């Protein structure tokens, strides 16, 4: 499957639009491997390219691929161990599963010959013997490989010189691959190859359990040593190795560490499976706090910095969400500014801005938060006897919980935080503190520029193609992406009219209206109730989104669903503009299970309508509840198209992008 990937990306450019392909620079970096250059210029050489490492089995194999690989059947064998990771097929271990997916007959034949020599159990064991090695980061692996493989008898040394960078690049299973290919390059026949592997395997089999244990211990020790020694251990060449290799290794690091203690005898496939599973489990977000759970709420309150007073009349349906009165705690918090030592001032400032509503809008909030974290990381000093990676993660977590107290996180922010934490977790231990900090800061900068700013530009580029002369475009509320699209289309000289639909209590549309009219766009302004009146003349609806969920539901400013529904009823196409970093693997069917509640007082007070602001005497009445929903969920069938930085996709393709995006997380 992996072998099919690279040629496909070259041959079939259609896929490229959606972003299912490995970026070209990656393929190049793969090509620079000594093995691939030495082996042959044939496409299978790219097998070792990191597109294989990315573990993304997205491709629907085109029929001609198998014939592609047939001429060089050797490839399949080395490729198949790689595949073990990517195929989560069997839950229980069955050795035949190993190569069962291998399509070429030679692969199985070579395997057969291998088993003839070694036998199943051992052959699987030997892979495990190496599996801890994969867990170890580049430098330490090197150290352990050279110094502390006691009697393993495995001729790693033979490979080491030429192929270690490549082997580290992926996983252990690759380790035995390079010689194979090297052999092939030398013009070896299939039989020879089999012999080679057969030779290789029994040599490895000799590691017994005890030895493997010892090996792990040694590696752990080496890891610690490596950390202590810093990057000195690494040669000049290996620094490149780390920079390239960290990512794929990281993905499995934490999980495999756990695995060490669980079972060593487990097969590599099983391990790989479990790794994937664990990873997935880890990535499933913690269930959000349910505010109808009294004990937990109390616990949370004790920790809280922000003392929110609960709203007087909570809406029954929304007891599971926090319902606070707003606006009261701001002065209190400001006074605390200098007393709070555990929250970084930049983070504190952002929190206050969220609280007061000065910063709103998905992108703005996310950028503000990331920049605050960047500041915090810049000023961060690892306390003595603490691990930067752990301590910083804890620190960020505490910042995040402070921000949550100020205003519940948006999904995009959650994604950004997840990104940052994974970056911290995957920091190479060999880096010095200042280097690590610099790396993190540049990571944050890159996230902001690539995932938000550049993504917006790409979205604008895509969306503008959907605007024609004479169009009447409707938008709801104020979305930064939509605004950019409209302005860009106007700059391109397209003749169109904009209908801005707005709703209380935020009336964000007025701000957008002002900006657009200021730029000379022809605008029509109306309120959401009139949407079915105005929709008759509209040709396209452009909507922003706070998040796009895995079932295609668009989670956005409340009212978006109404607009999309009316557009759908009148057969007007609905285009949702959303950056891919806002996609989330959660699914949601209604707007009630998870939502955010705004300030109820904003509902009761209508600015400019004195005659209506008279709920005051009823404020104490338990009968009256004011509900200020912030978001709603638009069902996917109302949406014609989602415009994202990967291109324009139907809502049904969201899960694919979510999955791909998560892979890409590993690459950044």
């Amino acid at each position, binding site marked *: 499957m992996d072998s099919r990937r690279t040629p496909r990306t070259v041959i079939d450019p259609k896929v490229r639009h959606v972003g299912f392909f490995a970026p070209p620079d990656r393929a190049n970096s793969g090509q620079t491997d000594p093995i691939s250059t030495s082996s042959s210029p044939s496409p299978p050489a790219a097998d070792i390219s990191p597109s294989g490492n990315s573990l993304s089995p997205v491709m629907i194999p085109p029929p001609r691929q198998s014939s592609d690989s047939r001429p060089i059947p050797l490839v399949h064998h080395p490729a198949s161990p790689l595949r073990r990771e990517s195929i989560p097929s069997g839950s229980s271990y069955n050795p035949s599963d190993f190569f069962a997916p291998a399509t070429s007959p030679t692969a199985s034949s070579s395997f057969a010959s291998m088993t003839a020599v070694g036998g199943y159990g051992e052959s699987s064991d030997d892979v495990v013997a190496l599996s801890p090695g994969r867990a170890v980061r580049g430098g330490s692996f090197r150290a352990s490989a050279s110094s502390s493989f006691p009697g393993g008898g495995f001729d790693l040394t033979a490979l080491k010189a030429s192929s270690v960078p490549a082997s580290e690049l992926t996983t252990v299973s690759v380790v035995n691959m390079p010689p194979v290919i090297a052999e092939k390059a030398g013009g070896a026949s299939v039989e020879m190859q089999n012999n080679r592997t057969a030779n290789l395997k029994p040599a490895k089999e000799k590691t017994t359990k005890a030895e493997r244990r010892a090996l792990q211990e040694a590696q752990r020790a080496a890891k610690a040593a490596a950390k202590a020694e810093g990057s000195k251990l690494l040669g000049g060449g290996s620094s490149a190795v780390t920079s390239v290799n960290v990512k794929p290794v990281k993905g499995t690091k934490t999980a495999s560490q756990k695995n060490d203690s669980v079972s060593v005898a487990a097969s590599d496939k099983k391990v790989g499976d479990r790794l994937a599973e664990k990873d997935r489990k880890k990535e499933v977000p913690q269930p959000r706090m349910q505010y109808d759970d009294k004990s937990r709420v109390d616990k949370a309150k004790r920790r809280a910095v922000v003392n929110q007073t609960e709203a007087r009349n909570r809406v029954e349906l929304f007891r599971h969400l926090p319902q606070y009165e707003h606006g009261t705690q701001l002065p209190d918090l400001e006074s605390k500014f200098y007393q709070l030592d555990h929250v970084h001032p930049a983070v504190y400032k952002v929190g206050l801005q969220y609280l007061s509503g000065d910063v709103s809008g998905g992108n703005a909030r996310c950028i503000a938060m990331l920049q605050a974290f960047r500041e915090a990381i810049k000023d961060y000093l690892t306390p003595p006897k603490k691990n930067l990676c752990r301590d910083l993660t804890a620190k960020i977590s505490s910042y995040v919980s402070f921000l949550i107290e100020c205003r519940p996180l948006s999904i995009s922010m959650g994604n950004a935080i997840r990104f940052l934490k994974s970056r911290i977790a995957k920091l190479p231990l060999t880096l010095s503190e200042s280097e690590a900090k610099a790396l993190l800061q540049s990571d944050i900068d890159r996230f902001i520029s690539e995932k938000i700013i550049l993504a917006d530009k790409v979205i604008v580029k895509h969306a503008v193609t959907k605007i024609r002369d004479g169009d009447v475009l409707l938008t709801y509320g104020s979305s930064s992406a939509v605004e950019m699209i409209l302005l860009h289309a106007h700059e391109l000289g397209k003749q169109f009219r904009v209908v801005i639909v707005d709703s209380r209590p935020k009336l964000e549309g007025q701000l957008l209206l002002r900006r657009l009219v200021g730029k000379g766009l*022809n605008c029509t*302004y109306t*309120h959401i109730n009139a949407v079915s009146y105005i929709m008759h003349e509209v040709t396209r609806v452009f909507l922003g989104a706070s998040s796009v969920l895995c079932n295609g539901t668009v989670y956005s400013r409340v009212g978006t669903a109404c607009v999309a529904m009316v557009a759908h009823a009148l057969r007007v196409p609905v285009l949702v503009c959303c950056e891919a970093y806002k996609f989330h693997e959660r699914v949601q069917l209604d707007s009630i299970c998870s939502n955010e509640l705004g300030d109820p007082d904003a509902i009761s007070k*209508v600015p400019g309508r004195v005659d209506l602001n008279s709920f005051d005497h009823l404020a104490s009445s338990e009968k009256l509840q004011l509900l200020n929903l912030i978001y709603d969920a638009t069902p996917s069938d109302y949406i014609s198209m989602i415009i994202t930085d990967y291109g324009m996709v139907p809502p049904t393709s969201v899960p694919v992008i979510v999955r791909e995006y998560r892979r890409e997380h590993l690459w950044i």
Partner: protein
Amino acid sequence: MPDMQALVNEFLVKLKKRKIEGSQATAKQTAELIRSVISQQRVPYSNQAGALMDAVNAVGEQLIAANPVELAVGNIVRRVLHIIREEYLSLTTAAVAGLNLLSVSDDEDDTEHDDHPVLSAAAVAAAARSTLRPPSLQTLLEDVPDATAIPRTSSSGGDSEGKSKSADKSSRTRKLKHDVIEAVNELIQDISTCHEQIAEQAVEHIHQNEVILTLGSSRTVLEFLCAAKEKKRSFRVFVAEGAPRYQGHLLAKELVSRGLQTTLITDSAVFAMISRVNMVIVGAHAVMANGGVIAPVGLNMVALAAQRHAVPFVVLAGSHKLCPLYPHNPEVLLNELRSPSELLDFGEFSECMDFGSGTGSPLLHVVNPTFDYVPPKLVSLFITDTGGHNPSYMYRLIADYYSADDLVVQRRPATGS
């Protein structure tokens, strides 16, 4: 008569300036005005009904033109015309029946004689109908026979009447007017009590712990909900505020003061909340003959959302809101755009508004429609003061209240009178 004209003019100005709001108030005042028009109207000896209808038509035409969107005015005018027809018909048939009875009692054995008066009674009724008929399709198309028919029938009617009962003529005239005024009084009574009659049915439609959503404010809805509350039902109400007038605030306040569990939401949250709602109950501005509803702005959205979630969409409408017309492009033709100041602050946006972009058309438009059209397929049920009805049944219900000949309210050409 001059003071009558002054009254009419005053009402016209009110309608034009939209000083009267709400179809109930309009309907009531229209009915009162027409009542006084009728009572002021001098009726000639012959063709009294025709004269009355002419007067009503003349006033009605002006009233309708003053505010064509306020369909209740036209409804009431047509109702009154229908009443006059009915009263006249019942009077004539009563008279003929009386004649018939007399003749029957006079000579019971004579079957030949018996046939003739019955025939003549039918003829009289038919003649009466044709005299009263304003330009309907038939009379428009068959101009000549109609013109000849009217004088003939009227003369013949006059002849027959002149023969038999010239004595009760004056009393009959007065009786017709009296009856019509009585009937109009009844109509006014109906209009003012339609809330109670609709509200009486509330308990049949609202069950315990129901969650009801409504948008904006309607007195009918308020009475309906309160009636259910008084019958000890406990239920919850979501009130969408109903921009740009925000009358939902008033409704919510009223409901709370009557002890109902009320939640006020923004209009935009309707879609989010409707999945937890059992029933949508709204008022209407007018109900068209096809079962479509002219409703306060925003209700089309609510109806669509309700349809999506299979929530019953119930419209409460007094009978004065039933309009015998079939709508064409009602979103535009039966709508009214209100002042943009309800949406935007003129001061804030004045610089944008004044900016003519060279070509003379301003950059900024503000659309603030008053009504929405809810097509009949989105309505689950109409509750009127006569009970619940399907949208598909509305045309029949409307046929009970209006005569098909009155659909176009227009002053009759002078030939009739």
